[in-house]
């Protein structure tokens, strides 16, 4: 069974971002970039499936600018076998990303696609579900546990009220939630080895996929700031303020 893991290059989760001067986007110049944390969890899970003998090959892919290859190398250092980079400087919407992932899945005859449940930049939480729809595949989103028996995939999902467990036939799509696993740190020898692993570069035009324009971002603005609060010196003062000033208790 081949496993495909799409990964996204995003601003590192620990960086505080700011809106740019002309309110059109986030100012990403010179910010530390990283593999989207949920994508990293997806890579880790795929590598564990291979280590357990359930997967034969782990392919990672990324759609984005040339620099996305850094994140593909990171994924290779974590244990993926090879990488596919679809080079584009366009900021594609999730539907277009899902169409390209589906094209790669068909070409590579992949049975299981594991994605992060959302990217921490655009916060869309759409791509996996869309990929499943395009490929008419079953989906298990927000996974906290994956078990593989023969051709049956059992996935536990984090839902609003608790946990839900589903069994899916392959091919299938799984999106990774935070508690699926804790990704390993890449060891130096593996980082060196990753540099020699195959990385193929393609463009959206190499696939028989029609991408459309779906939306325009009119402006990007900072959220309203909360006005500064006060420090209280005691629990008594806190209770007094909540009762008489805020009137919430």
């Amino acid at each position, binding site marked *: 069974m081949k496993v495909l893991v799409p990964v996204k290059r995003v601003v590192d989760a620990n960086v505080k971002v700011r809106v740019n001067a002309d309110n059109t986007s986030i100012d990403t110049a010179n910010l530390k970039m990283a593999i989207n944390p949920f994508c990293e969890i997806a890579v880790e899970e795929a590598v564990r499936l291979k280590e357990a003998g359930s997967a034969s090959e782990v392919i990672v892919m990324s759609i984005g600018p040339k620099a996305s290859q850094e994140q593909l190398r990171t994924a290779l250092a974590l244990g993926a076998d090879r990488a596919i980079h679809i080079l584009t400087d366009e900021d594609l919407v999730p539907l277009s990303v899902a169409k390209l992932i589906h094209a790669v899945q068909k070409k590579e005859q992949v049975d299981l696609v594991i994605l992060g*449940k959302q990217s921490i930049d655009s916060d869309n939480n759409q791509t996996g579900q869309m990929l499943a729809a395009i490929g008419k595949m079953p989906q298990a989103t927000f996974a906290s546990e994956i078990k593989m028996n023969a051709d049956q995939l059992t996935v536990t999902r984090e839902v609003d009220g608790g946990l839900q467990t589903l069994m899916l*036939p392959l091919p299938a799509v799984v999106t990774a939630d935070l508690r699926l696993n804790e990704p390993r740190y890449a060891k130096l020898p593996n980082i060196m080895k990753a540099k020699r692993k195959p990385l193929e570069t393609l463009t959206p035009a190499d696939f028989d996929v029609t991408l459309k324009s779906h939306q325009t971002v009119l402006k990007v603005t900072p959220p309203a700031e909360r006005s500064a609060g006060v420090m209280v010196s005691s*629990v008594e003062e806190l209770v007094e303020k909540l009762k008489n000033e805020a009137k919430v208790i």
Partner: protein
Amino acid sequence: MAILVLAEHDNASLKLDTAKVVACGQAIGGDIDVLVIGHNCNDAVSSAQQLNGVRKVLVADAAVYANGLAENTADVVTDVAADYEHVLAAASSHGKDVLPRVAALLDVNQLSEVIAVVSSDTFVRPIYAGSALATVQSLDDKKVMTVRSSAFDAVASDGSAELVTLTQEVAPQVEFISQSLTVSERPELGNASVIVSGGRAMGNSENFGILEQLADKLGGALGASRAAVDAGFVPNDLQVGQTGKIVAPDLYIAVGISGAIQHLAGMKDSKVIVAINKDPEAPIFQVADYGLEADLFEAVPQLLELL
């Protein structure tokens, strides 16, 4: 122009989220119909019929829809969506599971977590964990969007919408194995007017007991930071944050939570925020209306006594 709202329910009852998404529909403007997909969901249906401003309630009731699985739910929504310009669902785990699938089947993109309506094709949604707000114009012929319910006030239940029964049945692609839902007497996080949340500093799950007492005393819900959930102190469904629940109660009390941006993304629209933390540098104090620098194991019992 008509708007379809996918109902959020657990068969037994309609979730308040639905009334909030209907409010978003009213802000867009147009005839609003609610679609209930489930099994033995009569009570949810009659609650939906009472929602203010709803024209029709469409019902697909069959055993195959009992568990709200994304595949067949999305197929039904996509069929019904032919007659609508807007398709809305709550940005709940169910809405997030189903609606992108619907969007892809309709060959349109989705707008996620809409918090404000600018016009019938332009909406505001947070990006980067709420560090920025994007105003986005959809160019698609159908607008498919999940709605952040905490950003809208629920419509009243004084209506009487017409009932329409749908007959198509779509088989699921996956097999439902089991579900373990947290049983709690407390209000749900999304509906609570008071939330008491604990972080890593709680130390263990037993210590959450004092926060449960505090929540019960205030008639509120219990929440947690990701750190507390990851450490296994409380179940995952209590997580408040960028990737957990987004809440905006009247009063949010953060206890032993440092205030990572991912947590703030889930609660900074609360009306009044109280932070109790022994680290004066904790970023939670920057969003708190009332900050108390104190050891939570002394402050919370004191608070319990005084309330």
